[in-house]
């Protein structure tokens, strides 16, 4: 079953077509890598998926519902979780408070209790138990990124979107992030994951399947080996993949 179905998505900025008739299907249990050179349109596509931008044409069906015209916060409520490229945590709140904001019910009048055990489990999963009372601003960049993943996970997303999660991370932090994503996929913590990345080594570590974008269009789609063997991909930016 598909978690996300994108059909003919197009976005133009003042005559420049950033995303051009893109169609994509993400299935349950999948961890999809989305790669491409700068300006290929992958970030714009991500913005269209979670609702920061509205498409000029095309549809986005998420969890069997058309969400193309929904604002971002309602898409989030339906189960889309985004981890930004530049870490986006609550600097002057403690790690624990940050995670609570992920766990609290989002509907205005919902009075559901917070699942404290789940908060503890995620705190442990992202390895932040030792700094739970520290302000988020006091953490290293890598740990802030894990904290953000923890916040988003506590909102129980069906689809986890990550925009260049290893940007600014050390090699060790990148490796740990890859392990974390594989762990999430294996444990079915979310139904599907999309990772937008420049770091091909990272994509090789985590992704089952890769979509390559070029000039706003889908250039190729398949395993990383299939994609690397693709002549069009080689012609456009093969050097970057080695």
């Amino acid at each position, binding site marked *: 079953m598909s978690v996300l179905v994108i059909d003919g998505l197009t976005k133009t900025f003042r005559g420049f077509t950033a995303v051009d008739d893109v169609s994509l299907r993400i299935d349950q249990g999948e961890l999809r890598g989305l790669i491409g050179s700068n300006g290929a349109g992958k970030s714009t596509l991500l913005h269209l998926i*979670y609702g920061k931008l509205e498409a000029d044409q095309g549809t986005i069906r998420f969890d069997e519902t058309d969400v193309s015209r929904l604002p*971002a*916060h*309602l898409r*989030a*409520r339906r189960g889309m979780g*985004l981890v*930004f490229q530049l870490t*986006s*945590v*609550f*600097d*002057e*709140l403690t790690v624990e*408070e940050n995670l*609570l*904001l*992920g766990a*609290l019910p*989002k509907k*205005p009048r919902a009075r559901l209790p917070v699942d404290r055990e789940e908060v503890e489990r995620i705190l442990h999963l992202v390895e932040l138990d030792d700094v739970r009372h520290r302000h988020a601003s006091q953490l290293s960049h890598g740990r802030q990124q894990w904290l953000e993943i923890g*916040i*988003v996970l506590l*909102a129980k997303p069906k689809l986890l979107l990550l925009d260049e999660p290893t940007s600014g991370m050390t090699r060790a932090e990148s490796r740990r992030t890859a392990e974390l994503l594989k762990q999430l996929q294996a444990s079915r913590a979310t139904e599907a994951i999309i990772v937008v990345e420049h770091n091909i080594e990272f994509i090789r570590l985590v992704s089952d399947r890769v979509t390559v974008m070029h000039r706003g269009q889908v250039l190729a789609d398949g395993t990383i080996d299939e994609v690397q063997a693709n002549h069009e991909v080689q012609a456009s930016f093969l050097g970057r993949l080695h």
Partner: protein
Amino acid sequence: MALVALPIISDDRFLIDRFGRYFLFAIFALSVDLIWGYGGMFTFGHAVFFGGGGYIVGMLTTRGGWFLPVPFWLALAAAVAAAALLALALSYFVFSGKGALRGVEFAVVTLAVAVIAERLANAGGSISGGQNGILMQSRLGVPGVISLHRGYGFYALTGLLLVATYFGLKWFLRTRSGLVLRGVRENEDRIDLLGYEVPLVKRRTFVLSGALAGLAGALFYVHEGIVSPGTVGVGASTLVLLWVVLGGRGTLLGPIIGAILLPHLTASLSGTLLDTWLVVVGVILVAVIVLFPAGIFGFLTRPRKA
């Protein structure tokens, strides 16, 4: 403790009365701190609610015709309700939809609202009293039973209100809504993308803040005996920001300290340094803000390195 003991250790009724006024300033400062210090919404126009509270009470208790004048306590309730309604209307306008305002844009709109309010008050003729404002006829208290208009009674009334406001806000900030509000201050986009309804969070806080400022203002101007156009303008709106900055934004005790310290310093120095007091106050203010950017209370409670 010193403030609780003040009426016991001092029989200076003028001083006690003055501190009662500061307590109402402190509630006003807390109302601003709630939206600015805890919600990240910088406002240049909050005196619209503080002075507006005074105007509503003044108009409802001194004007005649139709159902007017009404008893003071009813007018007070109406002033709080009117301030809350104005805040609700304004917040719908600025926080909703795709053109929702934040940061400097929001501050500019509040500034414009303060300018408009002052002009309206000036041009309001017999309704607002024009440039002369409204001379209050009500007195705080229950006629024939208890007077809370001056001295110890006024001190007790405003002191209790301040304590209730302080603990009420302390409780609110510990609730889920309080945590989400602080989240909005820290990172509005993140809160939005977690699925929270940011405009609703802001509206609720703005209405609560407006109502608090309206209550404090209504009591203050009845006590003062007059409300005039300057009380809803940019000047009064800026003064409260200084109290909050001086004491410590984003803390609850800071704005209380600022709202007592700065007016007390001003009142004390203006009596002794007749020509230069404004300069001295300005220098002290700049020095404190430069030396303690987090405010006095923010400095005292800052995390220290081990």
